[in-house]
């Protein structure tokens, strides 16, 4: 009876309506999850706010190109900052087309449009220390070919991509004494300490403004141009012409490489909030407080924690509740039909092998971005431990006890509800507990598709390489995992018959 009540309560939670869709007068601004993209997103949002035609709605930190482009293609966001090279290569798959006009023409049938170039490029470049550059007379990448004793450290992405190290090496005929794989944020200290001589950088990295480095000239034009532009839905640009004109007027040709590098440094190195950095650029400090009202940046830590905890709990509770409602019956079905069990357990197993981020990305064409696709992905992820434990719990019952149900005339649901489920309850609850605790962790990834929760801070912190911000998300997440575990220990008392519970 108690178990039934708990189930009913969970059902009710699962069916609770998700937040209403955004009002039509909003322009939804997206960003990828790295510093520059956040800053440009914030600048765009503040200009929209200033134009007064529509309210900006911030959907920042949407992972990489796949997710954020998926979001604009499916109409979940209206505008974000992108790079021409990315549009050509990753979106349109026409690497030869690189200038804005033909790209804009190619995007038109997709309902999208481009602003003019903002004025800077964020492309791969190779950097060396200034003293080394002077000593070895290094000005361009070609010059490196004369010094095969140099040591390099490259970030994993650069090392793999055809438009990274493999192509560059062939194009310039380069060879180094040592090439190491290193996390991007760590290559700068390695170079500064003299442990390596050459690193790959993005041409607008904030670090470049502070360290005494020389960017080598791409004299044989290997790196494709990555000019920053705004990618927007045409319908929105046409519906809010004044805003679109304002965005173009204040941004096109207005942000040069030095400016963008300086803005990145303000956020990355000085730990200034994105809204502040954006306001600094716009030279309008009066706007920063207005942005604070809608942006998450300037919430007080307490309010922020409460909001994120509610969002995170919502994700976990609904996902696990739905996974229970699906998973326990699926596990029962598998225990009843051994042949089906093979297929079923393999199916949920395969779901688990899909990397969480990829699963989230698959959800975008189906459900857009935000809470709903995050819930669907989390729910699929939460299934495996529940289905597997329900199946294992039922399949491993003492066959003499199961046989006796037939002798006693217990059939169908009575056999299940009176005997089998209570006997398997320890195993089933263990599966649900595992699933819930895992989901608390996995739910932090929901932020990559705008699902909210503690992940919002982790994604921002990762972008800023700011451990304090990451911990502001990660620690509450760990605490919540412990709390959920404790809550389920309590639930065990309601669900598992006393003689089957271990311990005192």
């Amino acid at each position, binding site marked *: 009876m108690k178990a039934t009540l708990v189930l009913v309560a969970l059902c009710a939670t699962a069916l609770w309506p998700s937040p209403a869709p955004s009002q039509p007068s909003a322009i939804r601004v997206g960003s990828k999850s790295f510093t520059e993209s956040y800053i440009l997103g914030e600048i765009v949002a503040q200009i929209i706010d200033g134009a007064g035609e529509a309210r900006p709605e911030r959907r920042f930190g949407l992972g990489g190109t796949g997710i954020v482009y998926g979001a604009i293609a499916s109409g979940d966001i209206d505008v974000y900052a992108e790079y021409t090279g990315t549009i050509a290569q990753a979106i349109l798959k026409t690497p030869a087309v690189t200038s804005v006009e033909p790209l804009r023409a190619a995007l038109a049938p997709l309902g999208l449009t481009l602003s003019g170039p903002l004025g800077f490029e964020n492309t791969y470049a190779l950097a060396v220390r200034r003293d080394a550059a002077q000593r070895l007379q290094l000005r361009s990448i070609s010059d490196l070919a004369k010094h095969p004793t140099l040591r390099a450290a490259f970030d994993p992405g650069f090392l793999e991509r055809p438009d990274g190290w493999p192509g560059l090496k062939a194009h310039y005929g380069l060879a180094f004494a040592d090439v190491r794989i290193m996390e991007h944020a760590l290559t700068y200290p390695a170079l500064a300490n003299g442990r390596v001589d050459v690193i790959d950088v993005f041409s607008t990295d904030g670090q470049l403004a502070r360290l005494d480095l020389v960017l080598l000239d791409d004299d044989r034009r290997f790196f494709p141009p990555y000019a920053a532009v705004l990618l927007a839905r045409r319908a929105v640009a046409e519906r809010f012409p004044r805003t679109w004109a304002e965005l173009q007027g204040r941004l096109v040709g207005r942000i040069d490489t030095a400016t963008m590098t300086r803005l990145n440094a303000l956020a990355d190195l000085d730990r200034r909030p994105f809204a502040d950095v954006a306001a600094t650029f716009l030279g309008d400090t009066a706007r920063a407080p207005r942005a604070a009202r809608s942006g998450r940046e300037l919430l007080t830590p307490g309010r922020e924690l409460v909001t994120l905890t509610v969002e995170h709990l919502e994700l976990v509770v609904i996902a696990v509740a739905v996974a229970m409602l699906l998973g326990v019956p699926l596990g029962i079905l598998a225990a009843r039909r051994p042949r089906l069990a093979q297929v079923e357990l393999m199916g949920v197993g395969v779901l688990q092998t899909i990397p969480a981020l990829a699963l989230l990305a698959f959800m975008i064409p189906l459900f857009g971005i935000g809470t709903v696709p995050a819930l669907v992905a989390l729910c699929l992820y939460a299934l495996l431990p529940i289905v597997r434990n329900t199946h294992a719990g039922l399949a491993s019952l*003492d066959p*003499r*006890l199961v*046989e*006796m149900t*037939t*002798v*006693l*005339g*217990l059939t169908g649901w*009575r056999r299940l509800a*009176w*005997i089998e489920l*209570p*006997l398997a309850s320890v195993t089933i609850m263990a599966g649900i507990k595992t699933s819930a605790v895992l989901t608390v962790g996995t739910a932090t990834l929901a932020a990559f598709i705008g699902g909210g929760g503690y992940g919002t801070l982790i994604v921002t912190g990762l972008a800023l390489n700011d451990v304090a911000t990451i911990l502001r998300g990660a620690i509450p997440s760990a605490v919540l995992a412990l709390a959920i575990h404790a809550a389920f220990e309590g639930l065990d008392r309601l669900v598992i*018959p*006393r*003689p*089957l519970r271990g311990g005192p």
Partner: protein
Amino acid sequence: MISLQRVTKRLGGQVVVDDVSLLIAAGTTHVLLGSSGSGKSTILRLILGLLQPDAGEVKVDADTERPSRSIGYVVQEGALYPHLTVARNVALAARAEGWEDARQRTRLRALAELAGLDGELLDRYPAELSGGQRQRVGLMRALMLDPPILLLDEPLGALDPITRAELQTQLVRIFGELRKTVVLVTHDVREAFVFGAGITLLNHGRVVQHGTFADLARRPASPFVAEFLRAQAPPPEMTREL
């Protein structure tokens, strides 16, 4: 009445019951005697309908729709459900039949008295009982719906000698009072002697001999019968000393 006619059953590619014919009259107690692997437990499960014969015919005077009303089944150590109290374990079949609580309670008290179980134990869980008490509860559960047929598979198998002797005496009394058709499976020659008017000795799935204990002892159908009986007999010197 229970009858098996030329029944054969294979399990996992092995013949465990081989061309067995058996007739047990209503109201009598019959013992299936044999060592492990002789097929005696499989015969009980064929009578229960848990298994279907590969050849031959099993006929039981039972409600085929609801065999639980017709046949009670007791196994070694009781096979009680650990998550249910004694009372709940015993009353399961009655609950499935939709008996009212009061009727269940009355029946429980009567059964506890019959089986010699302290009424206070009804609210305990099986793990809190002794082996002999669990066996009594298993018997009560089998008798809950007062079925005309009672099948017992090594009911005294896992008990210490004193409890076993005590329970053995009580079972003989209970079977006498209830006048049910009882089929009891055992490997123990002395149990067969105590319980059985009729004994069927089985070996490797085949019937070796039907008869009373006296028949088996005095006119063994094969050297195996004499050997089986003698193997479990106490040495004469020991009997003299006792």
